[in-house]
């Protein structure tokens, strides 16, 4: 079964559920319309994830968009 992850997009503070094929962080970002360079992805412990790390079904992550601010 393809993994479904729950991503909290920041700073928009928008929560989305994304179904993935391979389940990598890179795939998640691409599915969100972002490039690997656009964001930092943190797991629920706040640890930054590498782009080829594989997310598990049901995993919650935070996606911090880099280009944000004043």
């Amino acid at each position, binding site marked *: 079964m393809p993994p479904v992850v*729950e991503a909290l997009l*920041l*700073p928009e503070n928008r929560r989305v559920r994304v179904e993935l094929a391979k389940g*990598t*962080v890179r795939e998640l970002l691409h599915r969100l319309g972002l*490039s*690997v*360079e*656009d*964001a*930092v992805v*943190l*797991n*629920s*412990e*706040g*640890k*930054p*994830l*590498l*782009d*080829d*790390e*594989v*997310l*598990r079904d*049901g*995993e*919650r992550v935070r996606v*911090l968009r*880099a*280009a*944000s*601010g*004043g």
Partner: protein
Amino acid sequence: MESGSASSGQPAAARARCSVCGAPAVARVPYARLSLCPKHFMEFVERKVRRVLERVGALRPGAKLLAAVSGGKDSAAMLQAVVRVAAPRGVRLAALHLDLGFDGYSSASRDAAVAACEKLGVPCVVVRVAEAAGLPVHELARRVRRPTCSVCGVVKRYLINAAAVEMGADYVLMGHNADDIIAYTVKEFLNQNLEAIAKLGPATESIPGLAAGRLRPLYEVYEREALLYAVVSGVPFLHDECPYRPRAPIEQRVKEFMNRLEEEHPGVKIGFIRRLEKRMDLYRSLVGDEKPGRCRVCGLPAAGEECSFCRITRRATGEPRGTLARSLIRAKLAEAGLLGGEG
């Protein structure tokens, strides 16, 4: 549905290891062919910051630096990196935060900036724009019928420079990262405003008593690297967007395009920024030798008889506020022990 067990985020193959020490990696730097643990990623960023500071002599003992801190990730990362790079060299560092008066956003930004300074042991002066300019930024903009971002830029540049001049700072430190500089450069190129690119090097020159040089410690640091550095260093920052930010600024679109390019062609951004710096003399040659004059009201730089800050505040409030703003800043710097030779 909390996950985050020890197995969370496991790669398909072995977990990537730091190229330097073999500890678990949290950062990948494709253009340098490195995977890095938190410690070595921080050192990687700090080497870039050190190079910029060293090139302009900002790391000499007794140098006075004023960091402009918004509370966002860039200025937080910059402050953290500069503290680690400059403090052991006997550099004197202070911070300035401008409270723009945007209700909840500004108070959250101020709290983050003050928290970062407290954590890093950097004296911080907070100046409220509403006090210095008579009105918050958006209200000034409304009264002079100009875009909020345009007025915000004028007000911030003026107050930051005023503080640096009063303090006798060698440089103002700005949190512009490599992606910002690339986006500004492309935007100016699209407008064929090539003279403006001359101001987009890692540092601008000082004019004694009139204008402090601006220095960009994050000049070679990607925006994503600045964010990751802020995260792994644990420095407090606010990850939010200004309520007056335009919906689709050109700079944002350029950043998105460049990031897609960087993902497919690692190193395209760092190559651009390094070549841009080498070509600065070419862009400077397009700018005349004419030095700015002094504002007849406040004595700080002006293109005509009156500086933009005095002109905007006169139109918005009925009186030019440059002299008042300088007095307010001087009082706040004195209170913090940062005036003239004190700091």
